[in-house]
């Protein structure tokens, strides 16, 4: 089996490139993977579409509530969140490309089972709360259209999504759903038609405005939580594994992520702007799905509820399988189970069991008689509280040369990652302090 060959004869292991001996792994890959302008367009297109899908029903509702409650005052947070979100998602993708394993598994291997269990538990709680909230919102828009009670739609919707996730090829299915979510681009046109005070919008976007009260900090944590959201961390890493995108795909992956996240935040920005212009200026609060849909009235008048409903249903159909699968990936990674959406049920039974349980618990939350808008909003506040803990672990992993080798974080990435942690922690502490001293608004 082996030949008697001295180590020096490992010449066949030399590289096809003209790389000098000792050139770093990252430099070698960078030279081999230059991306041409045409390739950039090919990569950026799908990224933009996928980025649109990052705004799930809970996200759209949270941005709407933030705009209706605080006007343009938190626009600056969305602007700041763009580089933070891009850097965090790129770190997650890099963990998958380098370690060839998902986030939960990487945490378990390098930081032990206890820490991994804590991380997975926190993410699972946040994910399941968001599943429940998304189900509530999807059912609410169906109720808005049909006039029936929302609770009648929760179980059929959950069953539909469980079937889609378990029995269909979700990644193929999602390509069609993305077109439904494209209706959220309508917020951009609606914002123009709503005639907001653009100088004020600009001023509040580039200059931080802080109002030290619980309403403001709840909005800030919810907005940051729905933008820098934990389920995307696990989903991004697992996506690299499913796509088998190794280190040579990092540059394309980075472009894809940047395009998607920028588009996602642009959409979010216009949702806030239009809700501020239409609802906040008239002192209208969002208490129901119908209130949230009203923001689109400048564009389509009384048909706003239909346009809003199509977007919410598409976003929910896209997001709930991702949330449930993200939970199943993280639990599967913790226990070392077979896990993949491309597998059949009998080939990865534990993975699909967790996925099913996540949806079931979400259903339980959705039908427990909670206030839909509050559920959506507070699930995103929970995301905002959980996110910094997970980002710290992601930063530690990607800053470790032992784990990442030459693909370790650079100074800019590390600094931006820690800035994200600092921003979230400050917002969380400010929220806890204001709620402790003056109660929930």
């Amino acid at each position: 089996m082996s030949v008697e060959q001295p180590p020096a004869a490992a010449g066949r292991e030399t590289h096809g490139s003209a790389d000098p001996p000792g050139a770093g792994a990252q430099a070698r890959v960078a030279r081999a993977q230059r991306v041409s302008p045409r390739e950039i367009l090919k990569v950026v297109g799908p990224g933009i579409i996928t980025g649109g899908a990052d705004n799930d029903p809970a996200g759209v509702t949270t941005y709407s509530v933030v705009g209706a409650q605080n006007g343009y005052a938190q626009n600056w947070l969305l602007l700041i969140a763009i580089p933070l979100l891009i850097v965090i998602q790129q770190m997650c993708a890099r963990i998958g490309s380098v370690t060839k394993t998902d986030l939960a598994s990487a945490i378990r291997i390098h930081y032990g089972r206890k820490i991994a269990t804590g991380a997975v538990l926190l993410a699972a709680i946040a994910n399941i709360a968001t599943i429940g909230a998304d189900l509530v919102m999807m059912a609410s828009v169906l109720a808005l259209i049909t006039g029936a009670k929302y609770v009648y739609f929760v179980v059929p919707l959950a069953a539909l999504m469980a079937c889609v996730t378990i029995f269909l090829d979700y990644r193929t299915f999602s390509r069609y759903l993305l077109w439904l979510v494209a209706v959220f681009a309508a917020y951009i046109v609606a914002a123009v038609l709503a005639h907001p005070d653009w100088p004020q919008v600009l001023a509040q976007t580039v200059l931080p405005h802080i109002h030290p009260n619980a309403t403001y900090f709840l909005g800030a944590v919810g907005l940051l939580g729905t933008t820098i959201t934990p389920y995307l961390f696990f989903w991004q890493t697992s996506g690299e594994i499913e796509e088998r995108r190794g280190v040579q795909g990092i540059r394309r992956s980075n472009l894809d992520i940047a395009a998607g996240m920028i588009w996602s935040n642009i959409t979010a920005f216009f949702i806030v702007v239009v809700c501020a212009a239409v609802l906040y200026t008239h002192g209208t609060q969002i208490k129901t799905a119908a209130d949230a849909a009203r923001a689109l009235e400048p564009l389509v008048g009384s048909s706003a509820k239909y346009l809003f409903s199509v977007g919410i249903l598409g976003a929910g159909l896209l997001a709930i399988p991702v949330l449930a699968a993200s939970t199943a990936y993280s639990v599967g990674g913790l226990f070392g189970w077979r896990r993949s959406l491309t597998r059949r049920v009998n080939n990865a039974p534990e993975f699909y069991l967790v996925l099913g349980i996540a949806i079931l618990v979400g259903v339980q939350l959705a039908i427990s008689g909670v206030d839909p808008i509050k559920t959506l909003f507070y699930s995103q506040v929970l995301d905002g509280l959980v996110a910094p803990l997970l980002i710290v672990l992601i930063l530690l992993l990607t800053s470790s040369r032992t784990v990442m080798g030459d693909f370790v974080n650079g100074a800019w990435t590390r600094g931006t990652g820690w800035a994200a942690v600092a921003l979230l922690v400050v917002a969380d502490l400010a929220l806890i302090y204001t709620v402790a001293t003056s109660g929930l608004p």
Partner: protein
Amino acid sequence: MDDDAAREGSRGAVDSGTAGEQESREVLRERVRAWWTQVLAGQVDHDHPIQGSNVKARLDGNTLVISGSVPAEADRQEIEAEVEHLRGNDVNEVRDELKVEPRGDERPDLLVQTLLGAFETAEQAGFAEGYLQGHAHVDPRRMLVLAAEAADDQRAALAAVLPEAYLGHAERALAAGRSLLIVTVDETQAFQARELLDEETRSLETIVLPPEPAERSSMIRTLPAREEPVR
């Protein structure tokens, strides 16, 4: 820890691994045969043992229809060879709709990556070694099997082939009575190698070290190159 000990350790493992390697190649062939039998019975629940979910097959009357894609013409020929023995039983005709589509645009030979798999027994580690060696889509550059009961000098080989940060993982596994397979592959094959270790050979735990240029790899610098496998 010197290189001689590492090479000696590797050779010792190789000797004990030969039987395991032959056995695992036979198991791989058997799994492929069993898969085609399941196709004929219309009961395919698993992916093709080598090509994975990229290759689909179904029986349409007495015609066996094979569809999907393979990365190279050699893979298509191998699939055709696999179904040759099925002709004449329930199969009158084979309709080959396979497309040859090279996977991705990744360049091989840029970097290597080392995987550390822990197994219940030395036989299982040897089996995994043979399985990787016999698999069409993985071409291991270096492999080292280390049994839990290996002699001290063979254990010492670990320090020569693994970076210090990963020695602890390996030593803990050995102390727990597990045997190790350490394998270095081209980075572009590392996903596949990991999947094979985790799922086909039931590694209890697989750790993947970061990618590195081959000339910096302790495995490649320390261990002798392997013979090209006979497929």
